[in-house]
């Protein structure tokens, strides 16, 4: 098999190291970032098309065959997540040049950013539970540093919360990995699926599955574990907020999908009620929190909690339709939420505050900003013709097809709340009269361009909904035939 599968990890890793060496050379750094950022995007797209045409890819690192060596696996789900990650990362990267004014900040920011990117891509590609842990740590460690990098008071505070949470999660993850190794004697996910299948009634298996839900739920901000997210996502520097809400909380959802569609396939029915209940509560609590916010970044962060509930609901149906809808939701929410966060960063740059009451009259100050923000609002609110309409439509259709009426009703109610808090914030920021204090400066074009591109993508997702949902449908079908994955890793049996 080709070496294509390791490129999405190796390129960002190499780039990060080169960037560290080029600390004193801003121009060189810019060239390296541009070239390698684009080449990661190209590699991801090539990988996705190759997976789509030829089926699941696997790569034995160092030539040690599974289950003994380290294995990288690319199926459609990983391919989709990789492309999404690179689109959002590229926008956040180009935005960071306008956002971080000082060269010293950029020299610190960009290597860490690429380390984070490498960890994220690694988490999507690994086929081994322990490597998943290591990739999570690579990603988290970079996030810790990126979060507290600017040294603002609330960032230090949020950083302390995030790292305490992260350390605890790591310990839990290690304990779960140790438990599953003691039980099955392997850490390779495909091998685990084979070894666990005959013993699925063993109480230890369901206990470990529950621990994995806890670990990944903490990363994804599922309901009892959502408390850290609003602080962290709103305090982080804006390009990192966009990355956190756009892609990094989805890493947790990705891991839940991977574990429950491969290792614990037979426990899907057992955990369905729990996941659906938690999804509904997550949706509702997040929206309730968002309604009460006066700070636009905190509002968006609470909204992310609520939207994670929607995604988990699609996953919790455990049907092909539900999974396909959840994947479509992951894609469109990633694009929409990162564009909204980046737009909030523009507000912060204009007046040094993200409180909604400090802003107003954007419709006269910057019609472009108003339009972009409006596109984000209607997309997240689920109004056609944006991609957001199709994400909600597919999810609700999948729920009705599977006769899950209560989650569907909750989803409808929360949608109304979503519309309310989004339009209220848009109205406050864009339509209300000019704020007190200095007259507003125009937002810089450098910042508007990446946000505008993401907003265009929201609309494109609505217009091109059918090819994208064809892709997610294929990915969902692949997820529900785990024997394909196992055969790709373990070879013919």
């Amino acid at each position, binding site marked *: 098999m080709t070496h294509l599968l390791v490129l999405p990890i190796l390129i960002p890793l190499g780039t990060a190291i080169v960037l560290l060496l080029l600390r004193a050379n801003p121009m060189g750094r810019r060239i390296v970032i541009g070239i390698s950022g684009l080449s990661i995007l190209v590699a991801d797209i090539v990988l996705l098309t190759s997976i789509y045409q030829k089926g699941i890819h696997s790569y034995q690192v160092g030539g040690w065959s599974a289950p003994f060596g380290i294995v990288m696996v690319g199926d459609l789900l990983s391919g989709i997540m990789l492309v999404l990650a690179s689109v959002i990362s590229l926008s956040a990267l180009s935005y960071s040049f306008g956002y971080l004014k000082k060269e010293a900040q950029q020299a610190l920011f960009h290597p860490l950013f690429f380390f984070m990117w490498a960890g994220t891509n690694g988490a999507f590609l690994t086929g081994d539970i*322990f490597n998943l842990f290591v990739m999570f740590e690579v990603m988290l460690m970079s996030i810790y540093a990126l979060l507290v990098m600017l040294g603002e008071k609330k960032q230090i505070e949020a950083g*302390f919360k995030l790292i305490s949470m*992260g350390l605890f999660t790591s310990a839990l993850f290690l304990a779960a990995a140790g438990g599953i190794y003691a039980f099955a004697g392997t850490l390779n996910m495909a091998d685990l699926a084979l070894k666990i299948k005959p013993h699925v009634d063993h109480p230890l298996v369901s206990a470990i599955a529950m621990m994995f839900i806890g670990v990944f739920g903490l990363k994804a901000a599922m309901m009892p574990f959502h408390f850290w997210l609003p602080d962290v996502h*709103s305090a982080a520097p804006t390009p990192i907020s966009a990355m956190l809400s756009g892609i990094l909380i989805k890493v947790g959802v990705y891991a839940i999908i991977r574990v429950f569609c491969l290792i614990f396939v037979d426990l899907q029915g057992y955990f369905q009620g729990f996941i659906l209940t938690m999804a509904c509560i997550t949706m509702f609590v997040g929206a309730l929190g968002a309604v009460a916010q006066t700070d636009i970044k905190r509002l968006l962060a609470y909204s992310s909690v609520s939207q994670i509930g929607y995604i988990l609901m699609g996953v919790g149906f455990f049907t092909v339709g539900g999974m396909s809808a959840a994947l479509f939701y992951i894609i469109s929410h990633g694009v929409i939420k990162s564009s909204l966060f980046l737009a909030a960063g523009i507000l912060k740059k204009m007046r040094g505050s993200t409180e909604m009451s400090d802003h107003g009259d954007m419709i006269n100050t910057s019609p472009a900003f108003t339009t972009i923000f409006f596109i984000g609002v209607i997309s997240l609110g689920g109004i056609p013709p944006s991609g957001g309409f199709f994400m909600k439509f597919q999810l609700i259709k999948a729920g009705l097809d599977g006769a899950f009426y209560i989650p569907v009703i909750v989803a409808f109610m929360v949608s109304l709340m979503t519309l309310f808090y989004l339009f209220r914030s848009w109205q406050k920021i864009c339509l209300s009269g000019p704020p007190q204090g200095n007259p507003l400066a125009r937002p810089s074009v450098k910042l508007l361009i990446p946000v505008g591109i993401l907003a265009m993508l929201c609309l494109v997702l609505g217009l091109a909904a059918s090819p994208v949902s064809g892709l997610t449908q294929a990915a969902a079908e692949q997820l529900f035939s785990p024997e394909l994955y196992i055969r790709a890793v373990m070879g013919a049996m």
Partner: protein
Amino acid sequence: MKLLLPVVIGVLFGGGTYLMLKKNILKLVLGLGLISHGANVLLISSGWIGAGAVPILGQDGTEGFVDPVPQALVLTAIVIGFAALAFLLVLAIRVYRDLKTADISEIRGQRG
């Protein structure tokens, strides 16, 4: 030995949880350290310890060896845990300097 390890793991997890419930920021950090060591010991114990021999090839037979995989894993885990804990300690100092308090319930600048 068979009984000792579960007791050690239990004490580490229990003590860590107890310390984390305290209000002092340093105790939280120490508690997290204890819990991650508990997880490390748990991981080590997943490869049979008992009276197992050192897993070095070249001696006779393949029976009676300790499983070397968890030892390799735990080495990685210790390094990662150490780095994260060191970072957390530095941040704890920053929090103490910024807020002039080591009381966790005072750290509530971002509520709501």
